[in-house]
């Protein structure tokens, strides 16, 4: 558990990173470096997106596995990785 916290700390210290969230599969945030309200919003909106992405991949190729999903917007980039029970979100401002 300590290494995960270290990684979260390091990530937060990286240039441009605005927030890091770890949530479990039920949609409850376990670690977060953002405000509560934002965290809950992100988690609630990202979870169905993840489910959809995984489903899509499964349908296209059942032997394939989901690794990560990047959503690049005008203002920043949202990186979502997932494993069986938890998923992790990082929001980063891309380098100019």
């Amino acid at each position: 558990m300590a290494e995960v916290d270290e990684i979260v700390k390091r990530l937060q210290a990286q240039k441009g990173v605005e927030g890091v969230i770890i949530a479990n599969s039920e949609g409850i945030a376990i670690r977060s470096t953002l405000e509560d309200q934002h965290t809950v919003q992100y988690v609630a909106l990202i979870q169905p997106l993840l489910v959809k992405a995984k489903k899509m991949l499964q349908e296209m190729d059942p032997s394939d596995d989901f690794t990560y999903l990047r959503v690049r917007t005008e203002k920043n980039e949202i990186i979502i990785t997932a494993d069986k029970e938890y998923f992790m979100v990082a929001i980063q401002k891309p380098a100019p």
Partner: protein
Amino acid sequence: MFIEKSPSILIDLQLFSKGEFPEQSGVPNTSHAIQIFICEIKSMPCIFSSLIIIMNVKTVLNANNPHAPKNLVRYSFKERVYKPVTAVDHLAVHFALEGNLLHKESDEARRLTIFHEETGDEDKPRSASSKRRKREAKITNQFNFSERAGQTRNNPSRERSCQTEPPPRITFSDSANQWEIYDAYLEKLQTQDSIEKKKKSTVEKKEDFDVKKKSPQNFAVFLLQSEDVTQVAEVAKIIERIVIQNTMDDIAQDFKYFEDASDEFRDQEGTLLPLWTFQYEKARHLSVTALCWNNKYQDLFAVGLGSYDFGKQAGGMLLFFSLKNSAFPEHIYPTASGILCLDIHPQLSYLVAVGFYDGCVAVYNLKEQTRDPVYKSTASTGKHTDPVWQVRWQNDDMDNNHMFCSVSSDGRVVTWTLVKNELMSSDIIRLSVKGCISLCLLCAAHGTSLDFHKQIDYLFLVGTEEGKIYKCSKTYSSQFLETYDAHRMPVDTVKWNHFHPRIFISCSSDWNVKIWDHTIKTPMFTFDLGSPVGDVCWAPYSSTIFAAVTIDRKVHVFDLSINKFEGICHQIVVAKKIRLTHIEFNPIHPIIIVGDDRATVTSLKLSPNLRKKPKSKKGQELPKGSEAEVLKMDRLLALLREPELD
């Protein structure tokens, strides 16, 4: 008939006194003598009592209801006024009783009779006839009549019920009084204070980065501390790599795609493009003493950290970095003594052999979670008495145990075998100045570098502190096969060529890099680099390209097929006052890593001119890589040898 008490009695009295007898409307006057008079003598004042006896009081009986209102006014919605009702009803009902006799011709009576006939009411005289009729209908056959009856089976009824387990209940009780409330508030205040302090310290660090100010509760809000988050470690690593890739996007793009176009105009020279730098804060005081790429995962490399300053030894570290994450090492192994050399097993890339300054050798298994080596040599198992300068993995022996060799300043070249849980050592050879076994330690030479031949297993080279290079064989432990008087100062590195079986290279602090053919005692090529040479390395993709690092911060790249006398690249790659210590080529990517004495590893990309492959004549097929390389070298050597024969 009612008796009305006329209020005109008073008036009468008054009038009587005047001597008149008023007539009441509608009621004839009776004679004065026989008038009935009733008056309430009591209510009247005594003064008039005598007068009353004389007078005639008129009382009138009429059929009006005294309780009926005399003047009724009703609101007329039509005219929207209150209108007096003229005709007031004077009917008063004293008693009413509903009878229960019905006329027999009436509707209700008829209905009732029919109803009673049907039900067979005996009370009613009429029902007798209806009864007779019914009886007549029922009697059928008196002789043969048998009544049959049947009954269907009734479904057996069963009672089924279900009961769920009641939800677990706990009774919880607590008290809330002024005390508790006060305490709770105090606690909250305290936690807020501590968060404020944390925020202040982290905000100072963050001033370098352009981060917006956030409210104090943002930093590491732990919502569920009890959850086990270790499984997220893998996923977290991926995210870290992605984030870093984003930050260092331009470097990653350069690494993959940038090709220096100006190489076409530069004749034959090339350049080195700096890419990532790898550092670890806790190792700042150490210098890079060994570098090694991993064969299986070609983006992973190992860095051995220690100190070349023999007066100050400050421990060491073994770090593993990946090109994908330049901010933080993948694996960290702190060691008690400084590391001087390391080697990663060519097939089993999780086994790493390490040689220490204190003469120990150790083997680390990257798959294990511990930070300690899985094998370590001790004084009893035959560890070296001087720093170990080079380790090299060997092929497995006949019992399928892993083996590696080490060379050290105490003059011994030792083979170590990993047998179950321990390291077993066996000396291959003892180095000495005169070229034969020497029992006297004073005469022992000090080995500083070691390399095994790529194809011939038993053949290896040892460089010594005296500047000599010995060619030895594992099978001959008493004698050297050959001695080369290579340098005037300790030989820092000897390396066999990857392709050509006879060529090797050596470098030393006497500013020279020499290329040898092991059959010939004199060097083929000698290069003076103008500064003590720290390390030299052959390129894995060409038999004629090698690179060297010198203490004056330069990296030199030579390509013998292009220019036999000068290098094609001499470039300063680090800042002032930093010395370069080691260099390694990546097996597949066109990059090199350079270690320096500030525990920093810099990666550089080779420009196209430095990676030239042999040109093929038109129409000719290009022969296979290694053969071509060998041919290339042979051609070179042939050129050299001809003038020698002369």
